[in-house]
């Protein structure tokens, strides 16, 4: 699926992570991040190995798998890869596609700068992490 820039920006505006961005800012994000697709059954991040980037799901679904056990599913609007980038440690989970997946990808070294440039995205990420932490400690 190759979206036009216009379609991509429309889609981004519907994702919680980018909900506070203006149209020009969304266009910057669309320009900065690369659209990628993965077939079912593909391992995008590997537990214990070096992480390769930050991913935001546009469409499809992945399983978060720790030691072979599925601990969560992520779908449209969810993101992954940020933990190992920000901590500078290998991923603690495999991320495996369970449905054909379209994502936006940002290279690991670019994430901090990207978040600093977009404080509202950072705050949305903070909220999402707070929710994840609440769920994890329930």
């Amino acid at each position, binding site marked *: 699926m190759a979206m036009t820039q216009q379609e991509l920006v429309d889609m981004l505006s519907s994702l919680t992570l980018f909900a506070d961005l203006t149209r020009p800012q969304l266009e910057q994000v669309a320009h900065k991040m690369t659209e990628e697709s993965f077939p079912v059954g593909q391992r995008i991040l590997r537990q214990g190995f070096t992480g390769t980037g930050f991913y935001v799901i546009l469409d499809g679904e992945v399983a978060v798998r720790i030691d072979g056990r599925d*601990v969560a599913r992520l779908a449209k609007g969810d993101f992954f890869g940020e933990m190992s980038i920000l901590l500078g440690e290998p991923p*603690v989970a495999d991320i495996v596609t369970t449905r054909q997946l379209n994502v936006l990808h940002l290279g690991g070294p670019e994430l901090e700068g990207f978040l600093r440039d977009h404080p509202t995205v950072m705050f949305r990420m903070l909220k999402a992490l707070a929710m994840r932490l609440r769920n994890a400690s329930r």
Partner: protein
Amino acid sequence: MALTTQDKAAALAGVPLFAGISAESMERLAAVAGEQEFAPGQFIVRQGQVGTGLYVILSGSVKVLRGSDVVARLSKGEFFGELSVIDQQPRNASVEAAESATVLALASWDLLALLESDPKLSLNMIKGLVMRVRQAGEKLGH
């Protein structure tokens, strides 16, 4: 012990959460943060209550309790209470002073204003949360 704004700034400078934030943010932080002391066994926050602030431990240590289970111990330089500030939901744990503890309390509105104005602080906070999510996940995984 009554801390001056300068004392508070010096204490906050050693806290990883505030590492690398702007001098202006640090000054605001020290000006608005209030020092509180707790005796052993005294509750600082209670599970189920809506939180109004973040706490940074300046001395002593605290126990994090979920129900009656101790799920973590925190000491000098560590912080707690951030979840309620970020998502405005009730506290998911209680925190009790394990020994005499001095904390700096930062009100939600002051913290949110600082997070908005200083991306470095937000980034530090994200890293702190990511680390906790990871630790929680490790506990779940084993």
